[in-house]
């Protein structure tokens, strides 16, 4: 007979206010096998754990059920506590009476009855639990960082500095990301390139860092400590080794009609190009779609003028396979498309631009050498209107429900920079709310108003029309309840940001969770903010949620620390909840092998003891190192020989019986 201990947690008032915890403890006492039941204010506290450990010893408990918060929260805590008291950690089950009960039901009677039912199901299951022992697997001492913006660079540098190898995979021809496109950064107004370029150089020259630019992740397999990634190095058509970065090829290239991605399409670039002056590597790439040589077979000028003979038209994509212990996602963001917001006239008016375009327009290295001019006529604007929340906090299908977080601050930055350089330009900002929490942030915004005379108007813009040579901004002044028609020479839209387009594809490849907005989900919103729920996958920067540069850098460092914690281990304990085959009943049909996503099942001839006789039969064998414990095989097995440890057929059936 099992001796089961049941511990009902109050979780302060979180559970106890809605569930009669004493009654739960009392009502399970009569269940056969329950040797001890008690309730306690905080089971996860030291006192709670001691109570459990003491009971295990005093009553000789063989199984433990904790009725508390979600097992996703404290299963590990209670397993550890039981183990310290000499119990196998897998003899502990959790009944989730907080998230699944006290927090979602209001009526105390109803909630208590449900809590008792959940406790009974856990008791029924735990009776059938068996002691399990984790296996071990090795850790590859190398990390993969996907994305070469400031987030990815910072994470890679921190890992590399600690002495581990890191590979950065960046899909564009250069590392640097969005930060390299920015002019100045808030709240200090220091130049973005001046603080970013040293980091880019540091990463490029670090002995522990390998950078794959113009490359994408093709495939990822494996598991924590033992990932295997296939990296597609897209054909650059230029030899990285021979090219000296002199730039003659771009200069002489006759095809100059492609829009510069780096300059947000505000100027054209040649078909063979280096995206920007400080690009790393400082090696051009041929955009084959726009190259005459590739499209018509004629031309070949770049090869003729290249003094280093670095042009390689015949180059092909190359696949590199590499093993990693940990993977960091740092895929960043992009502004949303303005196509659905016709009222702002972005498509038809060249003087309605996005904030990122404005960054390029004010950048000394930008298409206008930093001269602020209108794209329509090249004249200096006399008045500029900035519009906040374009597509942010928008619950319709046009926009994004969340606050993009960075816009209020960069609007203040842009407004201030304009005023600083051109005090005669009128600057007006339309906003819904100004959100500036952060160190020195509100002071920064107030400076724009108080010192620079930027006019802030609470109210949204409803439409932008062209009236002759200027624009008319139709807005509301919420405070006074009036309609405004503000003439402006230029309008800058603070467009919402969204995760990079390939986030979803990567999430699927890595089985990392993603939310409805395509931001990667963290393992716990407060306590595990830089880890994905999938072991060995970490999150850095905006791919997890909107962030500014300081926050991105902080999170990038945090992700690096988590990676280092993993890489510093030689062995990892594997999940012992794996599939197991009953050799007596296995018919060797191998239906299980066909559904296994990990190739963990193989066939083997074995001598099996059947009714006292040894018989040589084909048997399914589970490789416990490869099995991840999904249980697909258990259902596919026609003879019922395949089962899953920790979630066995009997255990789940017992839960069903206890509930129904």
């Amino acid at each position: 007979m099992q001796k089961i201990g049941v511990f009902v947690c109050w979780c302060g008032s979180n559970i106890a206010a809605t569930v009669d915890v004493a009654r739960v403890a009392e009502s399970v006492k009569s269940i056969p096998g329950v040797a001890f039941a008690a309730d306690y204010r905080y089971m996860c506290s030291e006192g709670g754990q001691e109570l459990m450990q003491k009971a295990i010893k005093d009553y000789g408990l063989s199984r433990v059920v904790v009725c508390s918060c979600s097992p996703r929260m404290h299963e590990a805590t209670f397993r550890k506590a039981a183990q310290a008291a000499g119990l196998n950690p897998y003899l502990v089950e959790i009944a989730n009476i907080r998230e699944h009960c006290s927090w979602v039901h209001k009526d105390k009677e109803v909630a208590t009855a449900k809590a008792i039912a959940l406790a009974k199901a856990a008791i029924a299951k735990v009776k059938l639990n068996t002691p399990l022992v984790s296996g071990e697997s090795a850790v590859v001492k190398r990390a993969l960082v996907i994305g070469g913006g400031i987030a990815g660079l910072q994470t890679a540098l921190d890992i590399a500095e600690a002495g581990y190898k890191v590979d950065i995979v960046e899909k564009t021809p250069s590392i640097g990301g969005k930060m390299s496109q920015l002019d100045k950064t808030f709240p200090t107004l220091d130049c973005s390139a001046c603080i970013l370029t040293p980091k880019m150089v540091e990463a490029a020259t670090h002995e522990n860092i390998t950078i794959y630019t113009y490359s994408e992740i093709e495939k990822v397999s494996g598991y924590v400590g033992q990932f295997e990634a296939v990296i597609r190095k897209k054909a650059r058509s230029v030899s990285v080794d021979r090219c000296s970065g002199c730039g003659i090829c771009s200069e002489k290239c006759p095809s100059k009609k492609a829009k510069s991605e780096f300059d947000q399409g505000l100027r054209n670039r040649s078909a063979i190009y280096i995206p920007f002056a400080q690009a790393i590597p400082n090696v051009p790439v041929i955009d084959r779609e726009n190259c005459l040589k590739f499209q018509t077979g004629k031309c070949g000028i770049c090869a003729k003028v290249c003094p280093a003979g670095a042009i390689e038209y015949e180059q092909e994509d190359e696949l590199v396979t590499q093993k990693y212990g940990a993977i960091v996602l740092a895929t960043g963001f992009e502004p949303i498309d303005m196509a659905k917001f016709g009222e702002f006239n972005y498509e038809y008016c060249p003087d309605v631009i996005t904030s990122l375009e404005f960054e390029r327009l004010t950048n000394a290295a930008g298409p206008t050498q930093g001269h602020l001019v209108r794209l329509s006529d090249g004249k200096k604007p006399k008045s500029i209107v900035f519009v906040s929340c374009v597509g942010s906090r928008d619950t319709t299908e046009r926009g994004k429900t969340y606050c993009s977080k960075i816009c209020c601050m960069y609007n203040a930055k842009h407004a201030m920079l304009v005023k600083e350089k051109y005090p005669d330009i009128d600057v007006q900002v339309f906003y819904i709310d100004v959100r500036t929490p952060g160190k020195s942030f509100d002071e920064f915004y107030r400076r724009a108003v108080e010192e620079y005379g930027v006019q802030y108007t609470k109210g949204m813009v409803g439409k932008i029309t062209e009236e002759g040579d200027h624009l008319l901004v139709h807005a509301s002044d919420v405070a006074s309840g009036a309609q405004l028609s503000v003439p402006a020479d230029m309008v800058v839209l603070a467009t919402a940001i969204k995760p990079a387009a390939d986030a979803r594809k990567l999430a699927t490849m890595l089985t990392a969770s993603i939310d409805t907005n395509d931001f990667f989900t963290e393992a716990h919103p407060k306590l595990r903010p830089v880890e994905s729920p999938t072991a060995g996958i970490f999150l850095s920067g905006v791919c997890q949620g909107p962030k500014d540069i300081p926050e991105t850098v902080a999170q990038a460092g945090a992700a690096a620390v988590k990676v280092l914690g993993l890489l510093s281990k030689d062995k990892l304990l594997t999940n012992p909840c794996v599939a197991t085959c009953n050799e007596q009943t296995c018919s060797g049909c191998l239906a299980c092998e066909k559904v296994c996503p990990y190739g963990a099942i193989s066939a083997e001839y074995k001598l099996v003891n059947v009714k006292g006789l040894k018989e040589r039969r084909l048997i399914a064998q589970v490789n416990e190192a490869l099995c991840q414990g999904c249980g697909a095989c258990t259902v596919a097995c026609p003879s019922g020989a395949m089962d899953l440890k920790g979630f066995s057929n009997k255990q789940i059936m017992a839960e069903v019986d206890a509930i129904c």
Partner: protein
Amino acid sequence: MLAAQSTPDKEFEQLIVAFCCNWCSYAGADLAGTARRSYPANIKIIRVPCSCRVNPTFILRAFLRGADGVIIAGCHPGDCHYTSGNYFARRRMTLLMSMLSFLGVDKARLRVEWVSAAEGNKFAEVMTSFAETIKALGENVKLRDLRCKK
């Protein structure tokens, strides 16, 4: 259409079993809790590693034991933690549904839903709507093993 339905003499106490995969839907249920999104208490959740772990026999067992509805909740297609488990679940449950229809049991008593770890609201909405469906369908009389009736 609504008038055609007879109202039961008295409200029956529904019993619904929800099998939730550990990675998405169970976490979605946790989030529903964290966000205090309420749903009917007669829904009891059983945690499974993946929706593909749900053996049709568990479901039949639940119906035999008197459950009025069973819902399987897993990761969205393409987002399975184990790559392809939810596809197996979808195929198996489609077959099970046609078997239920064949047995004369309304297949609406069994539902498959995709709820991600970030969809706490959706979890509560799905559970509420399923409970409503079951309420409209009435008590599971057909499949219940009367000897199991408490």
